[in-house]
């Protein structure tokens, strides 16, 4: 045996081994540096099938911050506490990702969300308190009195299950309790595989639900100077800025999230929009929220990033005047309708008489629109879509009430 033959053999073998180490070292750290072998496999194995079966799912994930931060499929699809796992081609996964999965990494955000009306109260509006545990009800009631201890909205029953399923639930499920004990889904705003902060900052995302005559925020925003400037300068905004570093240099024009949630110029980020909302504008008769003073101060701090204090105070003063005025108008008509009920001229069942719809439209559509318009810079919505129909409905309701009483008096 010659040394040459052994030398050549070892050089060849050594070259292959070094090449293998070198190539492996070039692999992305997202792939190689995972806490378990299953997570390593998931980083590429999932995409092998799903990029053929649901390309958009994989592509959306690849675009996400999760992908950039080495979070792979299995991290979100792992079985969280309270969830049932299912075997999936050698992986044990959970296909129904809920807030329980997101909170594994984003617990403080989940806690903020739980305090918001987006959580339990939104689902209670269509399903009542029945689906919730006593603990969940008690928790939300601290922040939003009467929001959880309530029956389902009567329209859910009157309009039927299909209307509720394809209509109300689509938005209100943002706060649906999950079988694993958590509440809600983060995907409502951030989408599933995109998991995007940028998406959540878009007005159109909020506008998926905050639209239409009963909560026409997206229409009001579009009319406002904020919305017009967003349309014009959207391309120059940095909607993907890191939440804790977001400044007015990134978002020099606000979207819904900028004012209601973002940590602009060092302010605290919140996933509880109620932290900056001082009035229950959605209510029949608007009252102050339990955290009125703190919430108003917080929102004014946000406004102050772009506006002088004088302007902010003026906007609040004028908007509060609209709220007070709308409350008076609604209370006036509420008293008329209540009087009819008291005198037995109307059915006790909800939405049984035409006047019920007139009154519901008055406060639920026109009243809300007027108040939201006032706070959000939507002049047309304060007047033509707010106070004008309030006046119209007021006249109509009073006329209908007079007619009802006249007819009632004629009865033998």
């Amino acid at each position, binding site marked *: *045996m*010659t040394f040459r*033959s052994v030398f050549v053999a070892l050089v*060849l073998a050594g070259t292959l081994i070094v090449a293998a180490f070198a190539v*492996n070292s070039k*692999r992305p750290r997202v792939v190689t540096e995972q806490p378990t072998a299953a997570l390593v*496999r998931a980083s590429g194995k999932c995409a092998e099938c799903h*990029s053929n079966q649901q390309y958009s799912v994989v592509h959306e994930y690849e675009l996400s911050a999760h992908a950039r931060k080495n979070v792979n499929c299995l991290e979100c699809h792992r079985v969280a506490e309270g969830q049932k796992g299912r*075997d999936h081609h050698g992986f*044990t996964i959970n296909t129904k990702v809920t807030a329980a999965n997101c909170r594994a990494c984003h617990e403080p955000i989940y806690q903020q969300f739980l305090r918001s009306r987006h959580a339990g109260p939104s689902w209670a509006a269509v399903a009542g308190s029945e689906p919730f545990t006593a603990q969940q009800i008690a928790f939300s009631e601290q922040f939003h009195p009467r929001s959880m201890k309530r029956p389902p909205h009567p329209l859910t029953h009157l309009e039927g299950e299909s209307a509720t399923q394809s209509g109300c639930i689509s938005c209100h499920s943002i706060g649906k309790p999950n079988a694993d004990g958590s509440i809600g889904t983060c995907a409502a705003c951030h989408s599933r595989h995109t998991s995007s902060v940028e998406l959540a900052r878009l007005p159109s995302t909020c506008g998926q639900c905050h639209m239409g005559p009963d909560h026409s925020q997206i229409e009001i925003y579009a009319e406002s100077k904020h919305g017009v400037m967003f349309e014009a300068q959207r391309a120059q905004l940095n909607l993907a800025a890191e939440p804790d570093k977001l400044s007015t240099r990134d978002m020099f024009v606000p979207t819904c999230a900028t004012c209601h949630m973002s940590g602009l110029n060092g302010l605290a980020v919140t996933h509880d929009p109620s932290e900056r909302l001082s009035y229950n504008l959605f209510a029949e008769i608007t009252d102050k929220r339990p955290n009125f003073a703190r919430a108003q101060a917080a929102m004014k701090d946000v406004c102050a990033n772009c506006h002088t204090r004088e302007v902010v105070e003026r906007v609040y003063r004028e908007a509060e005047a609209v709220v007070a005025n709308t409350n008076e108008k609604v209370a006036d008509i509420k008293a008329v309708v209540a009087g009819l009920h008291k005198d037995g001229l109307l059915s006790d069942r909800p939405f049984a008489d035409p006047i019920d719809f007139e009154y519901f439209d008055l406060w639920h559509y026109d009243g809300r629109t007027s108040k939201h318009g006032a706070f959000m810079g939507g002049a047309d919505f304060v007047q033509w879509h707010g106070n004008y129909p309030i006046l119209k409905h007021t006249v109509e309701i009073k006329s209908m009430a007079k007619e009802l009483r006249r007819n009632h008096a004629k009865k033998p």
Partner: protein
Amino acid sequence: MPRSLEWYRSHRLGLEVFVFLNLAGLAPDIYLAHSTNAFREWTEYVPLVYSLIAPWLLLAAIAALQFGGKPAVWHWLGNFVGWASVLVGLSGLILHLDSRFFQEHTLDSLVYAAPFAAPLAYTGIGLLLIMNRLVDHESVEWPGWVLLLALIGFGGNFLFSVTDHAQNGFYHWTEWIPVVSSALAVGFLAVPLLIVVGRPYLALCAVVLVIQAIVGLLGFYFHLAADLHGTSPNFVENLIYGAPVLAPLLFPNLVLLSFLGLRVLNCHLRRAPALSATVDRNPEKVG
């Protein structure tokens, strides 16, 4: 040795039996492998069907030669199986790469795509059959080709070990063992094809090959142990989706092929103390 046992000494027949066993063994292997994909594409049935039919055709060819005295039947039937095998292997290579790599052209897609080198097992087997018919089995060229194909097989094992274990991110250090060992096999088996070697070197090659066999059996144990503790609800699913239990057996399998080549080469070396299959082209008869 009695005439009835002479087939033991026939390396040409030995190679045929080796190929037969490999073709037959590929059926369960391919069934498990493509079950991972639930046979989503109809083309995934092709190697399975081929692996179920080809061994019988080859068996008929061997019988025609050994018992029927019909070398022409052996020749043509074997060639048919061999070329079909080459075709199945090359098509498989393209289809496996087409599963992801051709779209992305990244290292990642190469690692996580269907194992691109796996179908080449068919090509290797097919080439062995064709070689066994085209090359004089008593020439020194014959063991050279066997060793070359075994060497390529170990090269495939090297790629397999790197890409398959890269899917795990080489989570356990033991996953580097087959990479190192198959690299050694490639290095040592390449030498007789490149430079003149003697019998002592072949003895060293035999030691290296024994190590390969041990590594393969060890890998079989590790893969089986992983599958026994897999996350799937039953063992069969763990076999399908877990560590490929049959894959490490490629090592001892190639060791058998290499030993066949080394044994014949050793016989030649007994007559000529030092030669290389690439240098010495004079066909020397071996008995």
